[in-house]
């Protein structure tokens, strides 16, 4: 911040990047406050280490703050009141209104009382659990997963539960596998393709859950359940790879020049 001609990240200089003034961000300690060094001398062992680390991290903070070109300006976003608040109120009222409208137009269905003695012909959860119900119907795959001389290694029901574990596990791993600063799907067609595969898989699994409604054989349905997502993923990859060329100019101009790739 000492050199006024240093260009800032937004292209300006320190001259225009000035705050309102006001007190310094850190309050200087008064005479009777023991410094970190003094506290450190009075302690030993773990406490001393802690103080040493605190001193280091505080110095690091100060250095970073001194080097930073972070700009604070007066009124750069919408004020909380009234702009932001009114907009949020409008969105909230609209959304709640839509919910009440839908609730009035399509009232909740109500069925027969529970009867442990008679199993209904079609058992289905709510729509948002169809994919999960579809995972429970993967038992035709079980024999092909058997490893020990054609014996079924796990029960059909447990296969479905394992499938849930696999789904949640894969989703959990995503941020640890995909790193870097790329944000748009065109920048990383592979991960966009993985996402599209997952979305289509959720839909095809839902179809598998309501298989009674499909007049096609179970084998074909199972094949489609896994082939359609893969096909969708490949198409996404191809389309994004093609689009990428068209995006290149714009990306280079406003993005990569400002934030060079690692």
């Amino acid at each position, binding site marked *: 911040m000492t050199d006024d001609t240093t260009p800032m*990240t*937004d292209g300006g200089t320190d001259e225009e990047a000035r*705050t*309102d003034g006001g007190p310094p961000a850190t309050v200087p300690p008064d005479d*009777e406050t023991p410094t970190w060094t003094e506290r450190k001398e009075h302690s030993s062992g773990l406490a001393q280490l802690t103080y040493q680390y605190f001193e280091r991290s505080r110095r690091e903070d100060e250095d970073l703050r001194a080097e930073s070109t972070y700009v*604070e*300006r*007066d*009124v*750069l*976003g919408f*004020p909380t009141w009234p702009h932001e608040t009114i907009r*949020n109120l409008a*969105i*909230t009222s609209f*959304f*709640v209104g839509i*919910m009440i409208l*839908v*609730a*009035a137009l*399509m*009232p*909740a269905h*109500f*069925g027969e*009382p*529970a*009867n*442990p*003695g008679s*199993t*209904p012909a079609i*058992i*289905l*959860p*709510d729509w*948002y659990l169809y994919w*999960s119900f579809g995972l*429970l119907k993967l038992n035709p795959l079980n024999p092909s997963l058997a490893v020990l001389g054609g014996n079924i290694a796990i*029960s059909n*029901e*447990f296969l*479905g*539960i394992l499938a849930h574990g696999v789904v949640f596990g894969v989703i*959990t791993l*995503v*941020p*640890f596998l*995909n790193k870097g*600063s*790329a*944000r*748009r799907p065109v920048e*990383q067609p592979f991960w*966009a393709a993985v996402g599209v595969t997952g*979305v289509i898989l959720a839909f095809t699994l839902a179809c598998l859950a309501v298989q009674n409604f499909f007049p096609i054989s179970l084998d074909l349905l199972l094949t489609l359940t896994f082939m359609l997502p893969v096909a969708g993923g490949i198409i996404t990859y191809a389309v994004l790879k093609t689009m990428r060329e068209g995006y290149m100019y714009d990306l280079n101009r*406003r993005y990569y020049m*400002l*934030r060079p790739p690692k």
Partner: protein
Amino acid sequence: MSLKKQDDMDHNAWLKKQDLTVIETAFLTTLIWLDKRLRIVDYLELLETMYYRANMQMPKSHTEQYDLDNKFWYWYPLYSLGSLSIIAYLVAAVSGALLGFYYAPSTAGAAAQGDPTAAYDSLVMIMTDVQFGYMLRSIHRWAAQFMVAAVFLHMLRVYFTGSYKEPREVNWILGIVLIGLTLLFGFSGYVLPWKQLSFWAAQIGVEMALATPIVGEWAAQLLFGGFTLGQATLVRMYILHVFVLPFVVTGLIALHVGIVWVQGIAEPH
């Protein structure tokens, strides 16, 4: 620290030197008296900082810095899905509290298999006798549907804009936990009316639990109150739905939003 009185902190002497009106003197005397005991100045500074943070000193955001405003506003609806799920959650909470006034979690009253139970009858009562009861149940159910839909779409938005990336892994995992709990919310609520589909959905739940080795039977007993469905199942689902999950989910949502607040919104690039 010494207990010795310090002269440069003699506020009363300073007060006497000033040329003040009676009102000003009274105000300052009161303020100094209170401040000596309660250190009000600290809280005033806090309030002042909060005021300026909210209204004046917005840091220059990424979208402004890179001139992406048009793109950001174009995609704005996708960026409001998180708040929409919270709004739907609040609507479901309010309508659910009202429904709770009339609902009875009991399987009593069925003379034979397939007869209406007390739980079922209380829902019939809500839908036919209670003023606006049908609408109330409808709103509760649709708020739940909207919440689940908003949560799923929110996850898709976060995935396809890469917002889960490096400093935000913890919040992504927290979001997965929240989706699981939302589905559990939906499932437990689905069981409560104790109609045919409720019963057989719970039956599938018990069978899933029992198919799991080692922890399965324990989980079935904890969640469903045994291996066959009955009064215990209904009460457990009820407590899960109206007591356990509301606290846990509300707390996790607060944490989820708090982490977003601390880390900043992952804006589009």
